[in-house]
């Protein structure tokens, strides 16, 4: 059964990514879906809010079966087409369907997370966003074992580290920003800098 949230996310993220990058790949879409999901956790939504889950695949990147199925189904419906090898584009038909779905209330509630995730590319580079996501504690810890494991498993110690980071972020930002994209960008830059070794003594 096709999952409505995944379909909406695919169409929306795909259209946003292709505005900036001229097309997108399955891998890229999954990353931004994952980032959006993390932002919803930051914003206080429960794990169940997002509607579908992610695993860490063999190569170390986040992967959602539902997103993948949506992509395939949308291709079959010609709302997405393959362009330039393995890259994809949302067709005009897909964009018009997106407009219809965008009016649905249940989709409106997730828009702010999807938007914040995509807007981060405008403020720090695409490459930085991609690299920083791989430094996020849950993905990083699952990644080291190179084994399929459910992300967002609330019993894992990595999950508590993630929440700790969010708590620290909230303290650090002192409510200066009432939007979601600034915390997102600051968090991503912080993760990236940490990985570059900027905080090693």
């Amino acid at each position, binding site marked *: 059964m096709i999952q*409505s949230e995944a379909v909406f996310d695919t169409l929306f993220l795909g259209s946003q990514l292709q505005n900036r990058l001229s097309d997108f790949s399955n891998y890229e879409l999954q990353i931004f879906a994952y980032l959006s999901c993390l932002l919803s956790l930051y914003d206080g939504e429960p794990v169940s809010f997002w509607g579908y889950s992610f695993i860490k695949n063999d190569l170390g990147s986040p992967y959602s079966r539902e997103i993948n199925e949506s992509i395939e189904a949308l291709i*079959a419906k010609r709302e997405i087409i393959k362009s330039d090898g393995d890259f994809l584009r949302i067709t005009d038909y897909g964009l018009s369907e997106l407009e219809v779905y965008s009016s649905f*209330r249940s989709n409106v509630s997730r828009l702010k997370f999807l938007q914040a995730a995509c807007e981060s590319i405008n403020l720090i580079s695409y490459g930085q966003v991609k690299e920083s996501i791989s430094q996020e504690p849950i993905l990083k810890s699952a990644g080291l*074992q190179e084994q399929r494991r459910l992300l967002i498993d609330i019993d*894992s*110690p990595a999950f*508590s580290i993630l929440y700790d980071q969010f708590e620290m972020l909230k303290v650090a930002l002192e409510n200066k920003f009432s939007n979601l994209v600034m915390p997102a960008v600051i968090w991503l830059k912080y993760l990236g800098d940490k990985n570059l070794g900027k905080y090693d003594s």
Partner: protein
Amino acid sequence: MDKYNFPILTKIIIKNFSIYKKTNLITVNIKDGVFCLAGANGLGKSTFINIVNYGLTGIVRRPEAEFSQDNSIPKFYSRSKSFAVKYFDRRIDENLRDIASISIELTCGGKIFYIERNFFEPDALSKLEIYEDGINIIEDEQDLTPSDFDFIYKQEITKSIGLQDFDQFVFIQIFVLTFDESHQLLFWDNSLMERVLYLFFNLDPSKAKLADQLRKDVSTFESNMRNLQWDATQKQKELTSLINQLELSTNNTQLVDEEIINQYNDLTSALSDGLENIQKIESDVKECDLLLADFSLKLSSAKFEYDSLFSSSFNRDVSLEKDPAILSLLASIQSDVCGGKDPAHHFEQLKKLIWETKCPGNKIANDESSVKKLQELDEIIFRFKGDQDKIQERKLRLIKEYDNLRNVANEITSEIDEIEKNNENFRLNLYRPSDKQGLASFVNDIKIQIGQLLNYKKEESKKRDEKRLELKNLERELSSQYLTAEEFFMPIFTEYARSFLGLDINIFLQTYAKGATLVLEINDTERREKHQLSESQRYFIDIALRMALIQHSSLHANILIDTPEGSLDIAYESRAGKMFADFTKKGFNLIITANINSSMLLLQLAEQCKAAFMQLERMTEWTTLSEVQQQEQAIIEKAFVAIEKKLG
């Protein structure tokens, strides 16, 4: 965690060890790289390893004893001590007992140690010199006995390595830095792994157990608090009903101020009202819970309807041969046909599906109506969610009010107590003495009990908060250490294991809540039980684990390997040789005993290391061959020559 400075052996001298018949003085200078003691079976190669370890630690490990029996490092150390003497008893002639000894020269943490230990005095050193910057730092000490030397040695070496206790060094030396013939395999032994994880990653098993205990405590406190509250509430109700039953005695009221009596009456009726309100709120909250459950159900079925409709209308646009619903029908038809059943009953459904979803006119109309229906459902879900949120808010508000009322009730109760305390005869005067005498004291008892219950509750609450904080800090600490181990150590270990075995394996730490331990997966099927791997494979995983631990925790170390006789598959020998050579080149010295028959391993080692990096010591220099071995001498000699040739 800082790196450890494990001792690096530079010289070994064995005196008067009877098994080594040919000579009563064996001196070995150990250079950087590989030191290989090679010989045929039964010549005493494993004994050599035990001798070296005895020199360093003063014990010989009992071969049949499993660590899990001792299950603590200090216990293991003390129980192993007595074994050394027994071990050497059989191997050294009676008349040589006093003069048989092992001397070792080693460097550790910038200091050079010279130690000599007699085989029959494990807790003493006949000689100890420790050089720091060219000066023997214990030279000035007067009148030191051999057991003083041993004591000082233990302290100094422990400090230089960077450990807390000498028995920790013994543990590491025997179980991690040595791989011996009785193959106590680290990886498959939980009790060993726990200690290893603690020593190398600060992953304290006692902390994990403490965390579990704290969790239990917190939940105990919380249930205590609930019980106390309930008891207090019950008592309060009892009390007010009693008070209401009692009539005011007018006889002796002139002893008490009328104003106070009025105040008292007001308070008790306020209390009674308060308790009634509390009860009402309790039932309101229950009602909220029921409504919330109801909404939850409504929401999930609305969502389900939405999802189904979305899914089916989504597939409408898909061409016939890709539509999942049609494909699944076809699959059912196929299974019927192949199973010899009549598939005709599916045809109606197929026809209906195609008519509704694939025929042009119907499709468009359906599309429009689907979208409209979806929008309706979306609105309904949104409304449900809104209503649910409102109920949730209401519930939170009620709970807050409940807490307030509780507090007020408590205050009133204490005010009532105040009045009664300040007016000593009040109670007695208030209630008619005669048949209410017993009742009056009963009332008083209840009041005291209520006060106590509420106090207990406050205390439990405080305790719970303290435990919660402690738990949170502990969990954070464990998490970050666990992740540090994963980040730096696991990749090294996995790579080594893969290189050794040539298999696609994954190794991971199980979560700390269950107690940290390592689990091995091969091609996605867990092989926790060791009997599912061949002996050589198990051996190599353990070597890989040791190498990774050593590489992770130190810059230089000695690793002792006693190659098990005859249990290595030839297929692994050459690879093992190369792995050892690579490891040595990283700065870790290898002392290895090998059967001259394990020629592939030795040949590969020699090839990789060359004479610059590898010393080959023939055991035949140390001891005489048995008759059988003498007969095979030519073959043995040939094998030696081949290896020496590789060394170049």
